């Protein structure tokens, strides 16, 4: 029993859209960070699905890099959140409005 490629792609697209919606709609920094991670992992699903269906390994290699980059990004994101929390005692994105054009 085999699952068609398009099902994986649809799943990934839906996950990606949920991630995008999370980034755009939520105002808590930690949840925005989680949504970004969700976007990256949706892409990972896409890459692995393509890689598997084509029998080509380079997509999976990129997935390894994406995972480590996502970890680095999460660490930087948490560091920035900690620094900004110490400064403002808030993690709500609407509280940061120092710069206006």
């Amino acid at each position, binding site marked *: *029993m085999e*699952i068609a490629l398009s099902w994986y792609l649809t799943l990934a697209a839906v996950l990606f859209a949920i991630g995008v919606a999370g980034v755009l709609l939520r105002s808590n920094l930690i949840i925005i960070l989680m949504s970004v991670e969700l976007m990256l992992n949706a892409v990972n699903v896409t890459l692995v699905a393509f890689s598997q269906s084509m029998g080509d390994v380079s997509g999976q290699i990129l997935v390894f890099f994406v*995972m*480590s980059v996502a*970890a680095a990004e*999460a*660490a930087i994101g*948490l560091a920035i959140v*900690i620094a900004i929390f110490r400064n403002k005692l808030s993690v709500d994105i609407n509280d940061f409005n120092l710069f206006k054009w």
Partner: protein
Amino acid sequence: MPADFVPLLLMLVLATGLALTLLLAARWLGPRRANPVKVSTYESGMDPIGTARQRYSVKFYLVAMIFIIFDVEVVFLYPWAVSFQEFLAAGSGVGVLVVVTIFILVLAVGLLYDIKKGGLEFD
């Protein structure tokens, strides 16, 4: 092909239906007479002190950050370990070992930086 998944769908519908039925039945059939003792957090035993929604210390985030970095690097070691035998058989075992040693050394530098900067001191 989607036909293969019909039993799965049936299973989903059954499970959801059963759970919903039981929950709703309990709601309809059971008597509900609330009183202060009954709705307290521990119906029998001690009275709760303060709220459970306390903030975690920000230091946990620091530990989480460090954990994420060193945790994910293992991702690179797994494929290496799995295919090491093949590299040995192909006669390039030494080169591959050198490469992974450099990788570990770079990580070690990160750990060293972490220790020296007091990232692992929890107080």
